[in-house]
């Protein structure tokens, strides 16, 4: 607990997001509609290997039982610790799997990590015990039991070896990311975003919670990268997606496309099968009514459909970075779903296509509105022929600048100094922690070279004679004439 609190403090202020809206989702994943019901055996074998072959992985659990029986000394202590590392999270995992602990339902990997660690420790303990405690001792039940356990571990590793041999860990040859690659990258018609909606277990990227069993996420056009695997903070724009989803789910509008347009959402991806959590043979149930509800939208059409995913296209989308004129420029001054539903969004011209991040290039623009589908922030800057313009909120969620004349615009994000200071402060704190860690280790190394115990032969109190320096643990009988050294009594393996 102390270590966790320390880690939390070292990651301030970023760690505060776990206490904000969506913090639970960021930590444990979006909640599911019900229990995962993976089943005891699937959980125990970590879902590795085919259901019949993978059952061999259960052999890895034998050391957990055997280690406390055959280990001695420090190895016994570690065998017990390993056992509890397996059993306690294991019971929680099984309870969560059947829905008894809804808070832990989302991602079983959270609890599987300590179980895997416990299994590894148990196996290591058995090997150590076999080497240190059994080998060479009188033949008894420990030898065959130890041997049997070693064989069980070997067999238990077979599914892992087979699954990892090809490098794919038996994952599908075709991933959702590959299917999404069919969507255009940096198209001439403008950069766009993709709204992923569906079961959080099959989303291509971590999603924000919409309702139990349904999550959503926004990504930019182009190939998915590692940066998309981090769940960002839910901005005003991202949160507005939930409002649109509500309106669609409750049949309150037939204009979801217009409502999503300010965010640059061109495609809506509903994943069904990802080849891992959901397979063709054993698919997860798709969210009820999701495709039907989007199918009733007057500005959303089906672009691609397969057993793996459905891609819908928003026919009313506007590019992420665009110059708005006419009706679209007027519409950008309104806000709210009501206004968006009636908005005429024609008159959007893409600009700065292919530019990502916070450093954008210059572009020629006509008088009108420069639209940037990111939440309004004081950090965004726009210069029109060198003159700074003030941003305003557009469509209630994103950023826009009003251009009263034609000219060259430059757009970029100016990172606040406060953020740089926070990063600097964090770097300093981490440096201190690193230094302390290194120096602490060095100190311990030096101390170990001091005499642990000084044994002076004879008990007459006369100094002199041979002196024996011992390091490490010393199990000695309670003999007279033994005097403790300053570091005496330390127990170390």
């Amino acid at each position, binding site marked *: 607990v102390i270590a966790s609190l320390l880690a939390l403090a070292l990651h301030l202020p970023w760690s505060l997001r776990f206490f904000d809206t969506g913090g639970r989702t960021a930590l444990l994943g979006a909640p599911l509609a019900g229990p995962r*019901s993976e089943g005891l055996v699937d959980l125990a074998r970590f879902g590795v290997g085919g259901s019949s072959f993978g059952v061999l992985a259960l052999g890895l659990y034998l050391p957990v039982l055997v280690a406390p029986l055959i280990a001695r000394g420090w190895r016994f202590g570690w065998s017990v610790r390993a056992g509890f590392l397996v059993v306690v999270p294991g019971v929680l995992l099984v309870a969560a799997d059947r829905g008894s602990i809804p808070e832990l339902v989302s991602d079983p990997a959270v609890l599987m990590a300590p179980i895997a660690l416990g299994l590894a420790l148990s196996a290591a303990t058995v090997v150590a015990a076999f080497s240190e405690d059994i080998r060479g001792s009188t033949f008894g039940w420990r030898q065959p039991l130890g041997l049997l356990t070693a064989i069980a571990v070997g067999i238990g590793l077979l599914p892992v070896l087979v699954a990892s041999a090809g490098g794919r860990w038996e994952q599908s040859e075709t991933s959702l990311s590959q299917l999404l690659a069919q969507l255009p990258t940096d198209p001439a018609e403008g950069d766009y975003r993709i709204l992923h909606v569906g079961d959080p277990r099959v989303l291509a990227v971590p999603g924000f919670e919409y309702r139990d069993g349904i999550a959503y996420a926004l990504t930019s056009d182009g190939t998915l990268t590692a940066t998309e695997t981090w769940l960002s903070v839910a901005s005003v724009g991202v949160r507005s997606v939930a409002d649109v*989803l509500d309106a669609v789910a409750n049949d309150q509008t037939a204009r979801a496309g217009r409502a999503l347009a300010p965010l640059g959402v061109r495609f809506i991806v509903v994943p069904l099968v990802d080849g891992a959590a959901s397979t063709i043979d054993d698919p997860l149930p798709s969210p009820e009514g999701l495709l039907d509800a989007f199918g009733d939208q007057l500005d959303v059409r*089906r672009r691609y459909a397969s057993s793996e995913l459905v891609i819908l296209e928003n026919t009313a989308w506007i590019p992420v970075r665009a110059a708005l004129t006419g009706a679209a420029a007027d519409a950008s001054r309104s806000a709210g779903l009501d206004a968006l539903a009636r908005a005429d969004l024609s008159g959007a011209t893409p600009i700065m296509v292919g530019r990502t991040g916070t450093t954008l290039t210059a572009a020629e623009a006509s008088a009108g509105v420069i639209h940037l589908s990111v939440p309004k922030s004081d950090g965004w800057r726009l210069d029109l022929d060198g003159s700074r313009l003030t941003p305003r909120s557009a469509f209630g969620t994103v950023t826009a600048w009003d251009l009263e004349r034609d000219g060259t615009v430059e757009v970029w994000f100016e990172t606040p100094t406060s953020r740089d200071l926070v990063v600097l402060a964090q770097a300093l704190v981490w440096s201190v922690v690193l230094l302390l860690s290194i120096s602490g280790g060095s100190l311990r190394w030096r101390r170990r070279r001091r005499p642990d115990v000084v044994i002076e032969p004879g008990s007459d109190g006369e100094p002199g004679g041979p002196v024996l320096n011992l390091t490490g643990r010393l199990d000695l009988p309670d003999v007279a004439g033994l005097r403790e050294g300053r570091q005496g009594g330390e127990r170390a393996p």
Partner: protein
Amino acid sequence: VTGRRLAAVALVLLGFAVGVVLGLDPPGAVAPVFSRLPAPATPFAPTAEVVSSTWYCPGMPVNGAEGFGGEIVIGNPGDVDAVGEITLLTPGQEPVRLPVIVVARESTVVDVAAEVTAPFAAAVVELFDGRGVVEQRAIHPVGTAVAPCANSTSASWYFADGTTAQGSVQQIVLTNPFPGRRGGGPLVRHDVGAAVAPRAFQGLVLGPESTTVITLGENLAQDERRLAVTITATTGRFVAGRSQHYLGDGRLGYTMSLGAPSLDDQWWFADGEIGEGITELLVAYNPTELEVVADVVFLGVTSDDGFIEPVTLTIPSRSVSVLDVGALGVLPEGRHGIVVSTLAADSIVVERVLTRPAGDFVATTVVLGVQPGFVSSRWHVATGVPFALESALVALNVTGLEGSVTVSAIGPGGEAPLSGLEQLPIPASGILAIDLPAEAARP
């Protein structure tokens, strides 16, 4: 083996045992729910808070010929002006979009024929502020047919009645209001005792934002007296209307009506009539795989011995049964209400066909029943009457208690009861025919 070893092993074993017990018989997976909306049904005036309300009008014959046309009537009973957008959809033409503003407590009529020329034009009406009710008027040389516009699209549409007898023309107008293609495609089936699935209409694809017209009676289903139709899309949802020009078999006139977007087990009709020269037919269509037995109960009338026995109507699978109400000989002359119900859930569609004398000829009207979830204590009528009219409105009390009916007009000052039409008593399970005075007329 020492005690502490045994204790450690026992604890680990206990943990394993708890895990195994907990892991036995895990509960089944639960599908997440994004949206669970009721099935599409009878059009209604929405009262819930919405961002925008959307109405789908089935189609109007705006072919440019003399006597043909179409109008969209939007009523705004609210206190806020309704800003809207109308999209006119036609076969093979780009959609035409029109902005519309309906002033609070007023109604607006949009002349569709002035905007597009096509065999049929369907319309999507979106209202972004205020609440409204939307109807369409299909204008034909032999008459004008008023039909409500649908609140929603559906994957299946059903028409119980239809005929191509003696040259009558039945046209099904399919509208895809969405930007993506629909279909893979709608299956048309006309049922006359046995199902027929015309190959020509299998795999039919509805283009985005367009209408498709299927004409029955030309090359398909010629001279059929009874023609029920089911249209089902394999993917997506759409809108279907039926244009029917009656030219024989005891019927004359023109109707254009919305199909039934779903099956049900109960259908209500406020108005039926027995009289000299009047023919009233109940046409029940069962597109399911099982035979359905339904009870037809007449309301608002009594016989000489005080009670009219329900009539049992058997509707074979994938077939149509017709009940000639007048031929039963049990109903007195005058108006009556009807409810057709069955224990077979979501199994039938029922339409009432009424042919009345009109001058030297007859005029046929067809009404789809109201589904049970949509009987209401408050009704809106967007299309008024052009002059004072007897029995312009007919109300049916579906309860066993006496009640009263008030007819209000909506004007600049808000909703105001019409003089003489306040608190009109209506008997339990009875009907009330209401004459609309000249002050309620709107030319």
